């Protein structure tokens, strides 16, 4: 190494290439994901403005050039983090029951059980709580706020569609107004998420009540 350095060779490049086991060559998709999830974890623990590109590179083990290949700026990475957060929520976490084929009320009940949400990241070695990270980012950046609101309104439409189907199939009492219940559910879910952010004790009681209420809407 000393010899190579003296000759002006770049040793760091060799390290990265030679020592990586062949089976673990990252695919394009994996590298991008690793960057986004590293950023997600850091933004969740330290906040967007207190995380530097260097921190993200250290956490993800990627090179600066790799990061800028996928994202032109930290801001763009921020948008990707919000999208990833929503994707994880929908596919693996609190909101995943929404996509199942169960009884609509059961689906909503399972969402309430899972709130306030925690995320498990793929490369997780320690338990990381990233609840409300999008909300946290939305409060510090106008563009992020708009993105989060956009995502939330899609979510409301999805919940409304589920309730509407439930009424049409005769699983939910037809006195229920789908749009209004969806809005109530959103406000309630946001309240739980905020309370989770503040680590309040109100959550349990409120959830029990919400479960009773939802059960009373069955037909």
């Amino acid at each position, binding site marked *: 190494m000393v010899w190579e350095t003296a000759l002006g060779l770049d040793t760091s490049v060799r390290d990265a290439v030679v020592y990586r086991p062949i089976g673990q060559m990252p695919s394009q998709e994996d590298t991008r994901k690793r960057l986004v999830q590293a950023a997600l974890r850091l933004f969740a623990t330290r*906040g967007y*403005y*207190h995380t530097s590109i260097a921190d993200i590179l250290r956490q993800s083990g990627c090179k600066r050039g790799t990061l800028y290949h996928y994202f032109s700026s930290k801001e763009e990475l921020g948008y990707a983090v919000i999208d990833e957060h929503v994707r994880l929520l929908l596919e693996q976490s609190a909101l995943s029951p929404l996509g199942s084929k169960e009884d609509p009320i059961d689906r909503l009940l399972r969402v309430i059980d899972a709130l306030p949400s925690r995320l498990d990241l793929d490369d997780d070695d320690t338990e990381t709580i990233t609840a*409300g990270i999008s*909300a*946290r980012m*939305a*409060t*510090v950046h106008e563009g992020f*706020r708009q993105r*989060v*609101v956009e995502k*939330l*309104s899609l979510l*409301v439409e999805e919940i409304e569609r589920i309730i509407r189907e439930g009424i049409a199939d005769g699983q939910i009492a037809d006195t229920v107004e789908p*749009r*209004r*219940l969806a*809005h*109530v559910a*959103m*406000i*309630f*879910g*946001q*309240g*739980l*998420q*905020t*309370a989770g*952010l*503040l*680590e*309040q*004790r*109100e*959550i*349990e*009681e*409120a959830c*029990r*009540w*919400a479960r009773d209420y939802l059960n009373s809407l069955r037909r």
Partner: protein
Amino acid sequence: MPLGKGLLELATEVGRRNGRSDRRHPKHKGRDARAQLKARCLARRGELHGRQSLRDVTQSWDRALGLDTSVRGAIIYRPIGQMPSRQDPRIRIVHAALRLFASRGYYNTGIADILRESGCRRGTLYYHFSSKEELGYAAVDESFRLFAKRGAASHLATEEHPIDRLFKVLDGLPSCMELETTGSLTAGVAARMAAVHEGFRRRADGHLARLTDNLVEILRKGVADGQIVDSVDPRQLAHVFMIVSQGSQFGDLLGQPKVMWEDARRWFTEYLNSLRR
């Protein structure tokens, strides 16, 4: 304040200023670069104190270079119409800080901004608050004081029917408060601050816990006096009420469509009405 913290804030402030450099006079650009350089030198020598802001650093640097620093004082740039009233300077500083924290966020607001907004001198600010963090705690306290005295929660203290009191609180949500000194609106600033700082989160949590206890007491009394049906669990209803109000504040913070909260409020009002006896 620990050294690392001070550096972090300094770095934030430097970044913010550089980000806005298009709005500044070109001659000031060099100053930021100088300040950064100076800050880096100080940090390396371990001489930077948490209290020192970018401006202090800039000024001492300028002085070392033999530049005139007095011209850039806060007084020169203050428009004449905004001369400070004779109100208690502490309150004026806290309200100025609240307003700025609400619009720009805690970490994006510099001490210099607060001084400009409140029309106070640096010495006055540091006489009342030893650091920006302490000012932050005072701002959280003040936002809850306003919420209880003038905001939505003020209706809880009346002698009306408990359910009617809850209606009034719901009507007042999401809560916007007018600050008497600056005449501006602030909403959800405590939540916003709690999201970025662990100490503020704990402080806000404490205030909210007191609010919940207060609510439980009111509902319990309502049940005991026969104004609310017996089947209601006061603690549970209070908690549901807190969660719903927080959902409304959160939606407001995000700038969600109003119709969402309108729907939720109508629904909750109907539900509460069914609990009357």
